[in-house]
């Protein structure tokens, strides 16, 4: 058990990255009941925007610590620019439509974003690692970790708490919860469900973009980022139970730990670890860890 400590740190670090991918997806599903394949695109766009702004600001000689607020700013900018527009134009069309239509409309958006990224940013990889460098490293059990990795674990936990607080203690959050419970009743109570949908979708875009932005200082940005993110995000969201934020957090930890265990002991299984976890979980709980069947009213 020499590896216990590093496995735990690695597992949590991996889980944090996975959680950021899945949380926005599951939030959007819980409110809008839409499965958004384009979520992966927002993840990638967030990363590109962060690297671009970071690159410009850093090369202008700004202090290194500034790279942190830039990550959040980039995510907010991405969300503000893309969230409302896309919800208004494309996502709204899919409300109440069969899942196949939702998946295909958002998949079409995903395809379009893939090429747009290529046209704008080219095919080379970008790196902007000021945020990693400024934080330095720690030696844990003889293995060197980036303090940035440890920070991400804390940030993921903070996002879970922040979402809880937002949903249960703010006006917008309470409206979102009401709409999740029953959109029709909410509408009769005077809640503008259209605005709630737009707000929830924009928060989802923000979380996706934040995930991409936070991953970028350590991983860089290159084509293919979005596709990787969306498949993993869907798997984690399904394992947790669609629409369950705490479920997504727990699923991210399970998948993260599973991957790390695989890398340490059975490296051949690493690429399929998320899928094996999903098969195992859905076999026992067909609607995911925290999910439940919705019975048709007859």
């Amino acid at each position, binding site marked *: 058990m020499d590896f216990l400590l590093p496995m735990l740190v690695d597992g949590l670090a991996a889980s944090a990255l996975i959680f950021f991918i899945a949380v926005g997806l599951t939030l959007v599903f819980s409110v809008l009941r839409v499965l958004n394949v384009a979520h992966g695109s927002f993840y990638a766009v967030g990363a590109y925007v962060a690297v671009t702004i970071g690159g410009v600001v850093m090369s202008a000689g700004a202090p290194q610590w500034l790279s942190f607020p830039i990550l959040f700013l980039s995510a907010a900018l991405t969300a503000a620019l893309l969230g409302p527009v896309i919800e208004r134009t494309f996502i709204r069309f899919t409300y109440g439509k069969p899942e196949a239509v939702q998946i*295909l409309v958002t998949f079409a958006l995903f*395809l379009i974003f893939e090429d747009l990224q290529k046209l704008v940013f080219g095919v080379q990889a970008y790196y902007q690692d000021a945020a990693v460098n400024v934080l330095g490293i720690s030696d844990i059990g003889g293995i060197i970790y980036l303090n940035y990795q440890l920070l991400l674990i804390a940030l993921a936990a903070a996002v879970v708490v922040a979402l809880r607080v937002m949903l249960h203690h703010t006006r917008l959050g309470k409206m979102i919860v009401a709409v999740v419970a029953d959109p029709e009743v909410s509408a009769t109570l005077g809640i503008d469900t259209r605005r709630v949908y737009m707000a929830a979708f924009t928060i989802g875009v923000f979380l996706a973009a934040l995930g991409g932005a936070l991953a970028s200082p350590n991983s860089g940005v290159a084509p293919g980022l979005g596709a990787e993110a969306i498949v993993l995000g869907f798997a984690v969201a399904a394992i947790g139970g669609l629409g369950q934020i705490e479920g997504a957090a727990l699923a991210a930890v399970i998948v993260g730990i599973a991957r790390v265990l695989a890398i340490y002991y059975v490296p051949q299984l690493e690429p399929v670890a998320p899928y094996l976890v999903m098969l195992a979980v859905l076999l026992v709980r067909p609607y995911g860890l925290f999910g439940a069947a919705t019975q048709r009213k007859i």
Partner: protein
Amino acid sequence: MLHFIIILALAAAFAAIPAFFPWLAFVFTLVLAKGFAALGVAILLRAGLISIGHALFYAVGAYTVGFLSSRAGVNLLIPQLVAAAVVSGLFGLVIGLFMVRYRGIFFAMLNLAVSMVGYTLLSKLYTLTGGTDGLSIATPRVLGMTVGREAFEAILLYGGLGLAFVVGIVVHRYLKSPMGEALPAVESNEIRLEYLGIAVPRVLLFAYVGSAVLAGIGGAIHALIVGHITPDLAYWTTSGQLVLVAVLGGIGGVAGPFIGATFLESVRAAAVIYAPDAWNIIIGAGLLVVIFFLPRGLHGLIERITRKGERP
């Protein structure tokens, strides 16, 4: 009747074009391969089940041919095709027994998961599958005759087209049978089906196995025309493409997926030459146009014409 005439006309055009542009014969044979598989996906889509994993059965069909050709020394076209259909059907049966319990996104994700496990196995079982370098497939003998590559490719294209017709009629009859008509009923009201005493899992299992067989036939044709197969055949992007083809073409009739495949491969062939950087944009935009304005896909256009013809 008008409907059938239009389909025949399209098929005739399909058969004629490669005679003028020989290099398109290869593309059109791939169209048939994709069309078969997308038809399988379309059957499930009628029940509201979206499989992001049918590339697995496509790959199973292809690798069955690959094994027979490069490992077992069975270089005969018909046995290879039959084996591909049977083996992919068996895979469909085993996996389907598990899948028919799930609906919606969970069905989609589980198919994805199983296909990705299959993809990984194909990549990792190096000695069996040739790993990521894949397997090469020799030109098989046809009805006991040794044929040249060129003749073989013609046989594959026109034989494939004939097979598409036969299979199309069989599938059409199935879709019009009670079990076939029950598929949209699964989506619209599964509970009522149960209350009619119909075993929905059995309805779906039949569809699932059928769709796997169709995907397997497609995969076998793919393997034979390309002559080389890699695990990428089972990757989820291939599955996504099959769903795309089915939806673009329309799931309203058996010709839909073949029309969708023709459209997609033609656009791809053109995009590679004229707009290599915007290929995804073209496909994405095309998909949006179809979903927003042609909810029944390209096949829906034929339906509109024939409706007008039948009910003036």
